[in-house]
């Protein structure tokens, strides 16, 4: 699956969660830049899981710090 397509779809998904209107780039961090709490993370992850019909376990989430890493992980999970 192609990264461009994954990124475009996640770009659309993140919008309602980006309440502070942070400019989101590849290096944007979820905890630092977006200041998301654990509930927001869960809702966002659920939205991605449902969009791509995948599972991102908490163990995998722990490895994801930036927006770019998220797109990479989802691209990989879609291919699996």
């Amino acid at each position, binding site marked *: 699956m192609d990264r461009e397509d994954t990124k475009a779809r996640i770009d659309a998904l993140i919008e309602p969660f980006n309440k502070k209107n942070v400019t989101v780039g590849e290096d944007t961090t979820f905890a630092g830049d977006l200041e998301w*709490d*654990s*509930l927001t993370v*869960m*809702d966002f992850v*659920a939205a991605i*899981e*449902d969009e791509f*019909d*995948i*599972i991102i*376990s*908490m*163990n*995998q989430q722990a490895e994801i710090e930036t927006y770019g890493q998220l797109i990479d992980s989802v691209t990989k999970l879609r291919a699996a």
Partner: protein
Amino acid sequence: MSEGIATPDKPEPPLDAGDDARDLFSKFDPIIKQRQDLLDSGLEDPFGLVMERVLSPVTAVCNGRETILLGTYNYMGMTFDPEVIEAGKRALDDFGAGTTGSRVLNGTYVGHKEVEKALCDFYGMDHAIVFSTGYQANLGIISTIAGKGDYIVLDIDSHASIWDGCKMGDAEVVPFKHNDIEAMDKRLGRIPEGAGKLVVLEGVYSMLGDIAPLREMIAVAKRHGAMVLVDEAHSMGFIGPNGRGVAEDQGCLDDVDFIIGTFSKSVGTVGGFCVSNHPKFEIMRLVCRPYVFTASLPPSVVATAATSIRKLMHAGDKRAHLWENSKRMHAGLKTLGFQLGTDEPQSAIIAVIMPDLERGAAMWEALLQEGLYVNLARPPATPANMTLLRCSLCAEHTEEQVGDILVMFEAAGKAVGII
């Protein structure tokens, strides 16, 4: 250049706690500040209360004042039951103050076997193993049975002991939105073929006092071939025709693979357990580290627990009275204009939602001054970052006391400006 080695007689300059990376405690600065701000506002420390004397399951002396206890989880009031106390005293005399040993070495006395037998009889199940606390029961069972490559699917509002059990093990952890059957179903459906699955649910969720739709959720879990663990800590002794919990009440106890429970709520002492019909369950005694590598419960504790559990089997009248208390209190608080965690009373926990931590703490102190103790629950332990005053009723609260409690809530709520 080398800065040399620090010598003990040459004091280091004081650490700047704020940003000195060497002080491991600097990570706690935000919570230290939050607590200090609260205390500076003149409020009493809500997490530093001392019970000076305990008069009964529902009354104690705090700050020199007789106080009604409405936040103890002592649902069935067994802490002062004369037969329970007598059993404990006898065990102290006959078996001593403690076992000084692990269950698998010198720490299994006849009392430990008796309390496990009492649990098997109480639940009508084949196996029971007793841990030193309820926390350890979840920690031990979850981390042991779900291993590498397995998946744990759990409710996001699960108790800390469940989360810690997940963290201690090697399984993949997948949470779903609270009580959301469809979200759980979807996640189970996406787990790779052939992976082991454990679904972890609670009967009563202790923060808001709401129950889970276990019947539907367990049916979904079984359809996906998952094993099911249900924590019934807050329902044992009270909910269900025989007090076995929410799964019994909803008629699905036979489909639960593992029930986790505690002695520190309805049973009235301390300890935790898991009951199961799994034919290989006894192996847990050898492979579950939080069971093996800790001292077993003191003989007096298991004796009080066994006596209490057997009495709870025949406590239908007390269960009925506790339901009455819960309904009356819920309706009373609702009429007074408080915002509650559930629309209808679903358990013996009634959560009163506070507008923020400051007013929650002020309300908590105002109630204490009126002579009422409740729990103040705050983020991150609470769902959706709510501040709650959590009330847990007891079968020993009299009708008159429930009336007094409502009067105190009205006075405190008005004083603090919440109603």
